[in-house]
């Protein structure tokens, strides 16, 4: 069982590199705090998931690097190789000379078809290295041109070429302002296209991570590297091996499939958010102790109050009374802040996790009326500590948490679209106004579905 990562564009490549770095660091670390046997099993499962082994003995990331511009890839390759602990395959990358220029249409309609064959060949080669392919993990931003446009195209190609594989798109949601001016257009086009071909979209908002860096990690001058490291940590906390309820003593061999089955079987609800606790600077860790009930209490409130980190949670938010009817509860002001879930997955890592009571996540009032908690809630566990945190919990949630950002993006893009600004840049590459309209329709449908949970 292996996951093939596809890193797309500058953002995708930078984040992807940090993810492999984090995973490798976690596995190599001596912080496991578990039995030797457990640690070995963890190590083996992780290696099989993310790395193939080269003759040199240095693990090789199961990844395909794609960018339309050479700078980032060459930088990424060399940094990885320099670490000495892992590297990328020398052959498994592709870049062109000229970027997509923040133009989704350029990435999707020009670069995509032009380079499809080469990219898919690379993917195929990587796939053949796996005994069992669990699926693809594509990492991309939705603001730029290559990650978003080419990313959407490549995802589509993956879906066509591997109809029975799982595809999880990790999408970096741009800062609300300041990265790319046409980011809302690009986002709308990306999300709507991914909604057709991907199985799930795991979203990280730059703004949120930035805040985590500032408030939890206490970083003064935050660089993209810091942001990416937090993202990588969160992703690692989900994708490192864990025991599912069913697999029993063995580490799950189907991480993507398990994740998808637990969270996104419904084709209309594919948006996943990720929260974790605790998160703090490394040097404070030594002075901190955590209790599982405390962690989970916070995590649950983060979920229902839609807080992205453990600081500044609104403790006033409560789940609606089971008695109140659904229609009336939507109108009440208090419940506007309540984040209704479709499904949640909690991952616990660290000692004593077996004794943890997860009952508070099985409360039916957390979930939409048409799913019962048995269907909607899952937990994975492992006694193996993750990344120096003696105990840590992560929550992957399919809930309304992205509703607001999504609504924002669609709204802003729609405003721009109404004044026809920048449209000529897209028509230049064959994306017409009608394509925009289709994308808007798709996303309005998604918004409406999530709103009416």
């Amino acid at each position, binding site marked *: *069982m292996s996951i093939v990562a596809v890193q797309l564009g500058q953002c995708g490549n930078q984040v992807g590199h940090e993810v492999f770095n984090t995973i490798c660091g976690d596995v190599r670390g001596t912080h496991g705090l578990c039995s030797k046997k457990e640690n070995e099993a963890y190590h083996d499962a992780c290696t099989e998931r993310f790395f193939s082994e080269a003759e040199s003995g240095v693990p090789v990331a199961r990844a395909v690097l794609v960018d339309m511009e050479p700078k980032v890839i060459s930088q990424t390759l060399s940094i990885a190789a320099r670490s000495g602990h892992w590297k990328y395959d020398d052959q498994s990358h592709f870049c062109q000379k000229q970027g997509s220029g923040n133009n989704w249409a350029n990435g999707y309609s020009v670069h995509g078809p032009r380079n499809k064959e080469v990219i898919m060949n690379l993917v195929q080669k990587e796939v053949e290295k796996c*005994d069992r*392919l669990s699926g693809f993990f594509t990492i991309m931003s939705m603001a730029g041109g290559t990650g978003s446009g080419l990313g959407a195209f490549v995802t589509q190609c993956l879906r066509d070429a591997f109809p029975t594989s*799982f595809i999880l798109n990790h999408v970096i949601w741009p800062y609300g302002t300041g990265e790319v001016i046409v980011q809302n257009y690009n986002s709308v086009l990306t999300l709507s296209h991914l909604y057709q071909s991907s199985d799930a979209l795991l979203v990280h908002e730059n703004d949120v991570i930035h805040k985590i860096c500032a408030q939890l990690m206490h970083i003064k001058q935050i660089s993209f590297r810091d942001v990416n490291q937090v993202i990588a940590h969160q992703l690692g906390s989900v994708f490192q091996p864990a025991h599912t309820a069913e697999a029993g003593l063995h580490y799950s061999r*189907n991480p993507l*499939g398990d994740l998808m*089955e637990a969270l996104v079987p*419904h084709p209309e609800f594919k948006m996943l958010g990720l929260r974790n606790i605790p998160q703090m600077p490394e040097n404070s860790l030594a002075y901190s102790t955590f209790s599982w009930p405390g962690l989970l209490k916070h995590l649950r409130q983060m979920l229902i109050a839609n807080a992205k980190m453990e600081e500044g949670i609104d403790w006033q938010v409560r789940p609606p009374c089971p008695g109140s009817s659904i229609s009336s509860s939507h109108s009440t002001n208090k419940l506007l802040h309540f984040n209704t879930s479709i499904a949640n997955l909690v991952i616990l890592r660290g000692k004593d996790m077996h004794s943890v009571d997860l009952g508070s996540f099985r409360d039916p009032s957390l979930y939409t009326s048409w*799913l019962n908690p048995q269907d909607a809630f899952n937990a994975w566990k492992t006694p193996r500590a993750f990344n120096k945190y003696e105990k840590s919990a992560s929550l992957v949630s399919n809930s309304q948490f992205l509703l607001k950002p999504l609504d924002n993006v669609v709204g802003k893009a729609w405003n721009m679209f109404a004044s026809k600004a920048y449209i000529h840049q897209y028509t230049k590459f064959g994306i017409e106004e009608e394509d925009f309209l289709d994308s808007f329709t798709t996303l309005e449908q998604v918004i409406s579905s999530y709103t009416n949970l």
Partner: protein
Amino acid sequence: MRRCRALPAAVGALCRALPPRARLAPDVLRRARFDRPQATLDFWRLLYALLKQIHGGEWTESDAIDTQIRFVKSALWYHGYGRPELYQLPSDGSAGSRELLLAFSWLLHRVNLLEWLLARNRVKTGDETSVCTCEDDLSHSQKDTTEMAPGLEDRVDVRYLQWLNGKLRFQWRSLHAQHQEQCKLLHKIHLFTSGSHTDQALGHFSVTETDLIRHPENYNQLLQHLELETMQLEAFLEWKQLEAVYWQWMETVLDNMAEEGSLRTVRDAPVETSRLQEGATCCPWAESMTVQIDRLSGEMTALHSQLQELVARRRSAWCQKVKTREEELQKEDFSTKLGKIEESVELKLLDLTNHGAPNKNKMHGSCRLVFRSKRSASKTGFGGSASKEPVPAVSATEVIRELRMREASLQRELKQLQDECKQRLDGIAERLDGVICISP
């Protein structure tokens, strides 16, 4: 005199050739011959165990005797056993051992019982896979009987169904990945152990065999099973030698019955059938068969009328053309050409009907997977010299071709059903104005 000694041997061999679980003491047969009630229960159990295996069910000792008896009767009916006396036997198993002996003997021949059981229970040391899709048919026809979970009805949201459906879709994908891995592993093992197997026909080890080499201490049981099976096979061979004795003996049973007058002939038994007919209205088997036949004949009829129209049009067009070019054609010696065409079409159609007809030679059940690289395949003369090759073999390409056809036809059936469903939904949606329906 010889027969006297031979009969116990034959019966003994027969009993030993039966699967261990269903094994019968030879004495039971002897007693049944005299219709002793003591033998009845043993016989019901035997038949139950055997038929249950044939029908792929799990054998459970705990099943109540009346359930067992009901099942046996039903299964015998299914195989076409028609002695009304059997069906009238009491459901507590208190009498009728001779009837059961007859049924058992009939079954023995009718469905090749022994051979069938031997093949089915074969100790599997190889990597096996089934080459047909019968098991799917089976599991899904059984699924229809699944009971509804209580209390589910009142809170089923379409979205919940979509959710479950999506989950199922994902599950299939995971299964696919698992299967692909399995293939890769099997292939590696086959490849790496190529040439190791002492059995030249196989050439390489199976997973079980390779595992056996690594952990021989875990395979005592397997060995014992193998030995037991060998003994069973030897008993079967013995049985085959002595079979005639048994059948002659069975005839004497019939003779006896005829003397007693308990063996009626067809002519004097119209009374009993009426008893069988009651309650016949609710037979779900017949129901489902009728539905299938209806659907099939619907499709056929449609095809038929389509063909009729097409043929009529073609024929008239062709006649016209021939008429206009008559002379020219005569010069070309057209009729011999037509003769040739007729021949070739006949061949083509023959091929078609052969495909369509129940293929007697079609492989069923599981086969041992064997890897033969193209090179070695030609060396062993696989396929080409079928007469020399003692073990029946089928190539993956053949099976794949068969499966592809099956896939296509199923796809078609599914599409038909979906269209039907959609039409129905559209019908409903038309009445509900302004609603967008997303079909599950």
